[in-house]
């Protein structure tokens, strides 16, 4: 069977390859619905239908053996919401997800809108704007740490830790080792927060401690619940906002059109997430021999559903490589799909909506004043800096 599976013999994580990610995703999609990548000993799943099929079948394609590329991260994350299955996952997801449900967030909308408006006021007063530093990072940093009830100390480290937690999922090698070392700094931090009960009363973080006080979770699980929030809550939303700004700077006519049709903001955000999603895709282990579009994938192997590639698949989207804010690709896979779909997507959407509306009200044109710089990351598709001018005339 394996002989018939197309092969793509490339080290996907070399910087020059990552820089051309979308071209390589297109090659994978042309090669087949299941493509063996010998360099990473993994079956890539690059097309939309099959990515959904894999993510929608968590009993066959399990997360409990880890969802990264290296054995270290796959071992240390075992049992987290991201890397668990069945009843354990359901219990964790319920605890993590409860306060992130859109219903639970409605009371926070006004505060988030205020944060976005203040942020845009500040940014418009600056001569040189870095869209990443001043908006993309600043927005979730203005929302998430207070939401979690984190103390002031170490806030300057949170984004670095969150990025490292993402990069730690990459293939074994010096870059991943360095990232895992940085993640190691966050462990004593979260343990300290729990031991010293340094979480603001009434916050999400304090709620985790109270759940432990009531015996619903173990106290020694609390630090890891906090990590479950800190990592995914910061760099993902920041990444999406960065791409939004870059895309509308590169498509000024679409920014003008969106200003005339503010009802299309949801569509514009979905299109941004489809076109440049923050994550490439988390891996899964095949629990029992499985057939994907006629190809047998043996039990014990690892598969890589490529959400970022699925989101550009012409079979699904017709013209997947064109950016069109009117498309409203509501079933894009940037938040994943199914049981492991992003638990914080309601908060992410709320932050993005608030910021986009604040910008729409004030900014007539978003102009690049230099080249966007990408951060080299194994797992994320992320800008490092984005020099901008925000024009208000």
């Amino acid at each position: 069977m394996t002989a018939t599976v197309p092969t793509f013999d490339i080290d996907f994580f070399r910087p020059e390859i990552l820089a051309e990610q979308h071209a390589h995703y297109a090659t994978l999609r042309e090669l087949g619905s299941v493509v063996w990548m010998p360099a990473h000993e993994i079956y890539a799943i690059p097309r939309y239908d099959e990515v959904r099929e894999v993510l929608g079948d968590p009993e066959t394609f399990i997360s409990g053996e880890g969802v990264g590329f290296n054995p270290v991260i796959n071992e240390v994350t075992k049992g987290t919401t991201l890397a668990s299955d069945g009843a354990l996952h359901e219990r964790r997801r319920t605890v993590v997800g409860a306060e992130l449900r859109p219903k639970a967030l409605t009371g926070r909308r006004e505060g988030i809108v205020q944060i976005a408006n203040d942020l845009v006021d500040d940014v418009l007063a600056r001569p040189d704007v870095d869209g990443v530093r001043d908006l993309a990072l600043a927005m979730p940093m203005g929302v998430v740490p207070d939401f979690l009830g984190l103390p002031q100390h170490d806030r300057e480290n949170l984004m670095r830790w969150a990025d490292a937690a993402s990069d730690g999922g990459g293939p074994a090698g010096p870059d991943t080792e360095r990232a895992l070392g940085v993640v190691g700094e966050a462990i004593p931090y979260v343990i300290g927060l729990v031991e010293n009960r340094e979480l603001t009363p009434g916050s999400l973080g304090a709620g985790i401690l109270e759940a432990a006080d009531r015996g619903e979770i173990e106290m020694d699980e609390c630090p890891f619940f906090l990590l479950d929030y800190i990592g995914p809550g910061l760099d993902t939303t920041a990444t999406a906002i960065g791409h939004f700004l870059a895309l509308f700077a590169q498509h000024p006519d679409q920014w003008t059109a969106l200003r005339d049709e503010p009802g299309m903001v949801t569509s514009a955000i979905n299109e941004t997430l489809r076109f440049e999603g923050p994550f490439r895709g988390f891996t899964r282990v095949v629990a029992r021999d499985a057939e994907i579009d006629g190809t047998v994938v043996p039990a014990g192997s690892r598969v890589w559903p490529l959400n970022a590639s699925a989101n550009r698949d012409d079979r699904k989207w017709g013209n997947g490589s064109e950016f069109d804010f009117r498309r409203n690709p509501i079933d894009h896979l940037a938040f994943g799909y199914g049981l492991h779909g992003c638990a914080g997507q309601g908060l992410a959407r709320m932050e993005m909506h608030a910021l986009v509306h604040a910008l729409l009200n004030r900014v007539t044109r978003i102009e690049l004043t230099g080249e966007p710089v990408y951060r080299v990351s194994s797992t994320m598709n992320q800008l490092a800096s984005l020099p901008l001018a925000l024009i208000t005339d």
Partner: protein
Amino acid sequence: MRVDVIRPRCEGHGLCEEVAPAIFSLDADGELIHAFEGQEIPAELEATARAAVTVCPVAALLIERSGQ
């Protein structure tokens, strides 16, 4: 055709309401209201119902063929 809601999975993201407001809505408490729960979806709404099943980000909606 029927559509089942797997209640423990539903987190109230509301995308089903966006594409199929004649079938799904969220009440003031954010709980999902399914206008045809345990019933056949009217033929003219089947395509809309399928779209709702597709967009649910947490796969909480399932299509049940009649007689299953």
